[in-house]
């Protein structure tokens, strides 16, 4: 994929990701997150991971973010008015985050194979749905089933948690 497109979508992801954190309005945050996910999906596509890209859009942007918006509206959250910002904790948090960033940069710079190009794929279109499906239902059948059970449990949990307590 041409570097230009890569950088466009990367910047999209990052800027909207920052917007999620910086925005006061929760709805605006949620919508920024959606945009960020879309950018991420594009990046997945650029890595020839088509299935994952589609799933990202369908599940994350489609289902999870919708859920977020529903909850925000249910709770009727307003934009938060600024309370006093505790500069000490803010500074501390930022410091830790920045140090982590610095460490990641340093690691990637010294990572030898990170400077190699991607090996070329023989075919430009690959049937990755079939391949992922084969791996999923073949080698990883058991974890797949367990994740199914997990989702069931989560559903039951959600139902239980949101029941109104009878007074």
């Amino acid at each position, binding site marked *: 994929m041409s570097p230009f497109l890569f950088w466009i979508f990367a910047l999209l992801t990052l800027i909207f990701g920052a917007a999620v954190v910086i925005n006061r309005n929760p709805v605006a945050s949620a919508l920024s997150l959606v945009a960020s996910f879309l950018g991420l999906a594009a990046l997945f596509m650029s890595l020839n991971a088509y299935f994952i890209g589609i799933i990202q859009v369908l599940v994350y942007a489609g289902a999870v973010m919708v859920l977020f918006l529903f909850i925000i509206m249910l709770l009727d959250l307003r934009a938060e008015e600024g309370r006093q910002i505790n500069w000490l904790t803010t500074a501390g*948090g930022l410091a*830790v*985050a920045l140090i*982590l960033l610095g460490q990641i940069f*340093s690691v990637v710079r010294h990572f030898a194979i990170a400077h190699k190009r991607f090996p070329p794929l023989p075919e430009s279109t690959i049937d990755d749905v079939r391949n992922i499906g084969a791996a999923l239902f073949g080698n990883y059948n058991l974890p797949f089933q367990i994740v199914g059970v997990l989702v069931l449990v989560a559903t039951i949990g959600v139902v239980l948690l949101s029941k109104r307590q009878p007074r």
Partner: protein
Amino acid sequence: MNSILPWIILLTPLSSAVVITFFTLRWKAVSSFISIAAVLVSFTCSCLIFTQSGITAAEFNWIDIAGAFKVPLGFTLDQLSKTMLVLVSGVGATIHIYSLGYMRNDEGKSRYFAALSLFMFAMLGIVVANNFVMLFIFWELVGFTSYVLIGHWFYRDAAAAAANKAFITTRIGDFGFMIGILMIWMATGSIVFSEVAPRMPGLAGHPAFVTIAALLVFCGAVGKSAQFPLHVWLPDAMEGPTPISAFIHAATMVAAVVYMLVRVAFVIQASQTALLVVAWIGTITAAMAALIATQQNDIKRILAYSTLSQLGYMVMAVGLASNDAAMFHLFTHAFFKALLFLGAGSIIVMLHHEQNIWKMGGLARKLPITFITFTIGALALIGCPPFSGFFSKDAILALAYERNTPIFIVGLLTALLTAFYVVRLLVIVFFGDTRSDVARQSKESPLVMTGPLIVLAILAALGGFGFFARNFLTLPTETGGVLFVPALAFGAVIVGSGLAIAIYRNRTGDPIDVEILRHKFYFDEFYAWLINWTQELLARVSAFFDRWIIDTAAVDGSSRGTWGIGALLRLIQIGNLQAYAFLFGLGVVAIIYFAVFR
């Protein structure tokens, strides 16, 4: 050639003790019979082997650790030990028969005879032991059985306390003895007498070591024979039955010490310093005991202190490097001291266990046989010729005159004091008016008690003469000053007796009152104070340690420390989600730093 007789002598009293303890405790008459039979068997066998010379007994190895430490169980059967065997078993037989009469109404009779048989076994063991370890084992056994016998009437506090005192005091001496034995083994590599004796001159290069070893071995003697400063137990041991006082503390146990000293003389004589110390301790004991005896009012106590005094003389003789003189005095002393104690026992029983001499008096008419035999014994004790005591005491004084003048002077003065307090005793008990009702109603003792008295009186009278004694011992040779010393000694006797008669004739109370003597030089009080002080100190140190170091520092410390650390760590639980996330982040940064950048 090996004979089984020595083993029979040793083991018969042991089997008697075992049989009585395990089987016949209920039947008192049977127990006494078994015990007396055993001692008579031992006595007969002793007499038998006395006549044979060159007799040996089979010995067998008890412990043998690669030749480095060998403890055999064997016999020494030379003239000296054969004599002692006859002496011990003979006097023992007399005591057994006497006990039959003295203890006839006692409810612990079986127990008494069992202990008495065990004592015989231990005593005979000491006499025939041929090595230090065997000697020490029987030594300890004698201490134990004397504890049992002194505390025979254990339900009386005084008797129980006296038994404890005896055991503990002698134990202190035995501890020193054990260390001395270990030192000798370390130096010479063996504990058998016949092997150690020739090796002693080889240690001449280490005089300090030899002196210390000799003095430690002597320590055991100091304890068991109640020399100064461990003499405090002997007078209290009179709490036991009178035959025991006669046997153990007059004739055998304390004398066994002198026998032991003679046996291991090769150790003590290896060091001149040790000899001097031994002689002086003996002298001090003799003088001190004689001084204390002049102020005592219990008949058995007076005799106990006189035993202490005579023992002092024997130890003095050992210190002056004459084993023969010591053994001679031991020999004669056994007879007249046993006689005196048995006589006192006869008086006590007939006066319904009254022991205060000021409550007696005029008993010469009431108990004639006792009076005569007692007087013979008394005269022998003070060294009045021609009785046996004169010869043996005179031999020791002659030795002292030759070798060490200060000791001679003290010895002579002690002889004077001896005469003084013995005649005091005689005058108060047997002459004058009867001073109490029990005295007025007393009569002579039965034959079972007076019989032994008569036998012992004859021996006490004749025992000193050469023709009798030479069969048993080698007599000490008389050298210079042949007439001078006996004359001085006799003079001391006359002066002392005269003083006593003059002061104590026709009295109802003691005119002289020297408090320090009456309180036995305050030794008991001093020891009690010492023990109290030591224990107090130890208790305070322990209390301090317990209260401050264990309680406060360790226990409280650890609990408060844990609480404190907990209080510190608690501060991390803030409950704030973002704070926890922050800490997570810190942790991750740290881990990455240490994993990747180091």
